[in-house]
């Protein structure tokens, strides 16, 4: 039986400042236990600074853990990194790797050479991927002339062109438009479905992306895994609760809502330009709605809109962490 694609045991990473006066140590990962099987499209969902990238860097052999163990394809990241590197690749969102004076095809070819792939095989694979990503007409253009979306598509091709067993995708659709994101997402899904035991570990802070793509999701915050299950099962965590979205005119005192009976958790965003506040509640008692409305009105704000929503991963996150993503 093949080993798990990824396995971590009490994985911890602490970053120490270079000098004492530069501040305190930061625990980026704390006792992370995770198992990702072969053939899974696994999501790691968490806000910025949650520890997602640190975990990926350890798994991709770029960083050492402070304590605990991590295995990729059954190999220890600390001692057997040579074996791991043959089997993995990684793509990050907003990546600017490569050389601007090379063409798209040259750049991609160059990176395949670092994996020792025969040029004829590499070039054929690159052509197929360029067609798949709608970039074939750009293959002879210099990389520095590409738009952000085109460049990120090229980066994603770079990751898949080496035919890895396991690919780490760190926010691969970060800052991209709808079409470019969709192309990348569709390809990721296709690659996992059609490849034999191909595994993707995707980090994102886009809830919908994780929901749409991933078979299982781990929610991470402050370096700790808070929950790990299928999106459906995660949403069940808030199914007994009521989730509510409420828009009001600018609400000054939000903290009063904490004291309303039946409010489990809530988050808010203020829109100063439009002079409004958007609130999102997880309620353990639906009867709390009238009390919430009363409190808001008593604080001088007007209700602009109110709707009950289907539970999303964001609600799960709010319930688990007690705050939103942004």
């Amino acid at each position, binding site marked *: 039986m093949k080993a798990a694609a990824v396995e971590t045991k009490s994985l911890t990473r602490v970053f120490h400042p270079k000098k004492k006066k530069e501040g305190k140590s930061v625990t980026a990962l704390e006792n992370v236990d995770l198992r990702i099987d072969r053939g899974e499209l696994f999501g790691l969902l968490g806000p910025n600074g949650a520890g997602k990238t640190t975990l990926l860097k350890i798994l991709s052999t770029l960083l050492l853990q402070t304590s605990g163990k991590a295995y990729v394809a059954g190999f220890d990241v600390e001692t057997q990194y040579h074996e791991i*590197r043959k089997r993995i*690749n990684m793509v990050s969102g907003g990546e600017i790797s490569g050389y601007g004076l090379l063409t798209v095809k040259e750049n991609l070819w160059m990176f395949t*050479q*670092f994996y*020792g792939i025969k040029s004829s095989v590499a070039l054929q694979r690159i052509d197929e991927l360029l067609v798949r990503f709608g970039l074939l007409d750009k293959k002879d253009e210099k990389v520095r002339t590409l738009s952000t979306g085109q460049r990120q598509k090229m980066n994603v091709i770079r990751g898949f062109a080496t035919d890895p067993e396991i690919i780490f995708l760190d926010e691969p659709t970060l800052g991209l438009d709808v079409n470019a994101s969709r192309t990348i997402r569709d390809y990721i899904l296709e690659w996992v479905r059609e490849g034999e035991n191909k595994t993707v570990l995707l980090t994102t802070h886009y809830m919908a992306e994780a929901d749409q793509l991933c078979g299982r999701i781990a929610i991470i915050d402050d370096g700790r895994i808070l929950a790990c299950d299928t999106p459906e099962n995660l949403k069940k965590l808030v199914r007994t609760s009521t989730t509510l979205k409420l828009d009001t005119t600018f609400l000054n005192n939000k903290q009063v809502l904490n004291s309303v009976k039946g409010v489990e958790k809530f988050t808010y965003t203020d829109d100063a330009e439009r002079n409004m506040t958007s609130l999102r509640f997880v309620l353990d008692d639906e009867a709390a709605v009238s009390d919430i409305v009363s409190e808001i009105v008593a604080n001088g704000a007007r209700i602009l809109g109110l709707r009950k929503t289907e539970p999303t991963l964001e609600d799960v996150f709010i319930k688990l962490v007690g705050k939103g993503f942004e």
Partner: protein
Amino acid sequence: MTDSWVVMNLRAIKGRAYPRVIGSTREPSWVFFEVALPLLTVAAYAYIYKFMNAPAEFVGYVILGGAMTAFWLNILWAMASQFYWEKEIGNLSLFLMAPISRMSILAGMAVGGLLATTLRATTTIVIGTVVFAITLNLSDPAMLVVVFFLTMVSLYGMGMMFASLYLLFGREAYHMSNLMSEPVYLVSGFYFPVKALGAFVAAGASVIPITLGLDALRQLFYPSTSGKDGFLPVEIEALVLAGLCVFFLILSKYCLDYMEMLGKRTGRLTLRWQ
């Protein structure tokens, strides 16, 4: 069938050398910045020597020195500082994650830089010899090839070592390169025979491979003045250069391994602006 480790690494060297070689054809501005401008310095020294009625070979010494300047600049700006810039644009992580020896990446940088810079240096020599009507009397072409090869391997070995060391300096690497330009032109005798600085300084400067390489090349191009202007016999200089090749290549491997381990421990190699 899986290719051997050697074949994999040769492909990696070719891959990393490619942007350097192709870059010369994509950005022809190098002709102005890296040939025409250095030639002005060469011309200044050549006219000083002519004005002083120095022996004719001194103009030749200057042109050879000017040609070697291209290699030294390539070492400072395209080898030593390179890993720092690769880190900034995110390439370094990708290099470190690849299943090949990191030395292949450095070797690819070196081979590409060497090929592109040889073209530049040759252009400087050709233009210099034509403009100043100098005659080069090559006595031993085989030895010239040996000396040039040893000089380049040891020089680029030094550049490979610097590439890892510069990562320690971060953005300060800029200043390091500036610091090592003019002083090295002086102590290595780019525009005059290094012997003029005295045996003590010349011996100290010999740790920079270009010092002995340049001195040997001058002796090979001007055999009649070899005894008068040469620092050490060419054979001895070739031997020392061979020693420097081994020394710098081993040291560069050690520095690279050390930097990688340090980077993995601290996160410095994969986090930008550190």
